[in-house]
């Protein structure tokens, strides 16, 4: 051991609320059984939109938060707090932990945009005096992280990275750095998103980024399939508790997996289109593998970012081949959850961690007619039981953000 040895970081707690379930157990059950959380949007406003399907949280987070507090929290903030409470309880963090050694790293892709729009409507119809005094803390993009920090009274720093759909993987990567650099023993890390309302849907739809398979909601998110026609919006939150390994061991904590490595790169290519060469996506995976002290051949599984868009999915397949080779079993759990934007990386990290932990790779559903360029082994339609000693989770975001996380069996 050299004096430069970095501390190992382990995952000791998981929390989630998703279109598949209100907690990790129900979400995982949905994932391994290939259930779709995508439904027809049963609201009047959906009629004016070209996209009328989404993955809504099945368990309203407001049901788990004091009624008065829900008036002061955007739904994205509520979801973050619900998932964080689950993760904190799952980790069994003792009440007497030194809160100066606990940090938060929780991001959102968009933030409290629903609050912004609702209060703007109120301003225009009822006047400035009727705008809620809680508007600003509800819409600020650091609001979810701040509420999570308040929930546990942490003093080790509250951070909220924003990198669109890479946000919560980046948040987990920051968590790793925070512990490695000695700034905290425990980091509550992840992301949240709740923007299923007309403006974001109209905006994404105007980009022609979304599936319009409105009559078959459960079949709409179909990564790697020839019939894919865009992503399906989902909402929810995912939170993991990261902990310095010796800190976790000293208190006898249960360990799901080790967060062995992480890497963040940027395309420098286009504001929304991924670099078709996939060079920086591949480099993120390569650097994460190296950071984890692994060989590419050690990686048995990749939870792909694959959102079900025509261009993105196959670019990522090429990047995975370049970085990891053709051995890993690939899946896209977005086929079931839809795309949770700023929460995607965290929810998919949880899927990756549990794949490592249980030795089960969740399926990619709706993969009926694979793209001709699909040259990797995808767990099509049925979960794959297999040893997963090490796995990667990829997340890529508008702006050219690429994040890769490496989880290893603990």
């Amino acid at each position, binding site marked *: 051991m050299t004096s430069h040895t970095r501390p190992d970081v382990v995952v000791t707690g998981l929390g989630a609320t998703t279109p598949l379930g209100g907690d990790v157990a129900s979400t995982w059950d949905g994932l391994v059984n290939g259930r779709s959380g995508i439904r027809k949007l049963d609201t009047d406003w959906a009629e004016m939109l070209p996209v009328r399907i989404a993955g809504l949280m099945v368990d309203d987070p407001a049901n788990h938060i*004091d*009624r*008065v507090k829900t*008036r*002061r929290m955007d739904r994205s903030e509520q979801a973050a707090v619900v998932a964080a409470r689950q993760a904190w309880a799952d980790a069994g963090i003792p009440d007497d932990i030194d809160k100066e050694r606990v940090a938060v790293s929780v991001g959102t892709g968009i933030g409290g945009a629903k609050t912004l729009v609702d209060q703007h409507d109120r301003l225009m119809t009822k006047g400035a*005096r*009727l705008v*809620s*005094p*809680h508007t600003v803390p509800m819409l600020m993009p650091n609001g979810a992280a701040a509420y999570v920090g308040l929930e546990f009274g942490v003093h080790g720093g509250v951070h909220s990275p924003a990198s669109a759909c890479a946000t919560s993987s980046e948040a987990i990567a920051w968590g790793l750095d925070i512990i490695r650099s000695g700034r905290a023993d425990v980091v509550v890390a992840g992301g949240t998103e709740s923007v299923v309302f007309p403006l974001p849907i109209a905006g994404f739809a105007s980009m022609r980024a979304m599936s319009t398979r409105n009559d078959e909601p459960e079949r709409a998110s179909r990564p790697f399939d020839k019939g894919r026609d865009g992503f399906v919006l989902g909402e929810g939150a995912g939170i993991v508790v990261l902990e310095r390994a010796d800190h976790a061991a000293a208190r006898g904590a249960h360990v799901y997996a080790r967060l062995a490595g992480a890497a963040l790169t940027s395309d420098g290519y286009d504001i929304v289109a991924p670099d078709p060469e996939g060079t920086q996506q591949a480099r993120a995976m390569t650097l994460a593998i190296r950071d984890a002290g692994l060989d590419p051949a050690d990686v048995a599984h990749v939870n792909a970012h694959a959102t079900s868009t025509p261009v993105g999915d196959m670019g990522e397949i090429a990047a995975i081949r370049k970085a990891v080779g053709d051995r890993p079993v690939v899946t896209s759990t977005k086929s079931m959850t839809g795309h949770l934007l700023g929460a995607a990386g965290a929810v998919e990290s949880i899927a990756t961690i549990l794949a490592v932990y249980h030795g089960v790779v969740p399926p990619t559903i709706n993969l009926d007619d694979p793209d001709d360029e699909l040259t990797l082994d995808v767990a099509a339609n049925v979960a794959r039981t297999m040893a997963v000693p090490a796995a990667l989770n990829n997340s890529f975001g508008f702006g050219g953000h690429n994040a890769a996380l490496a989880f290893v069996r603990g």
Partner: protein
Amino acid sequence: MANRDEIRSGLADILEEVAGVDKADVADEKSFTDELDVDSLSMVEVVVAAEEKFGVKIPDDEVPNLKTVGDAVSYIEKNAA
């Protein structure tokens, strides 16, 4: 026009809705901030809701004078249309 009991009862409804105050705790001598735990942002909501409910204007520079429930009841009683 509403009498003091009706105003107090209406205020209790508002306080419960926006600040989670137990209606049974709402009495004339109770301080909004010290005893009923109504924070400054919630007080803004209480004032705006009371204006709507009782058809009264409560200017911002008047709010610091409304320290107790009784202060607010008296102000509304005196100024309601």
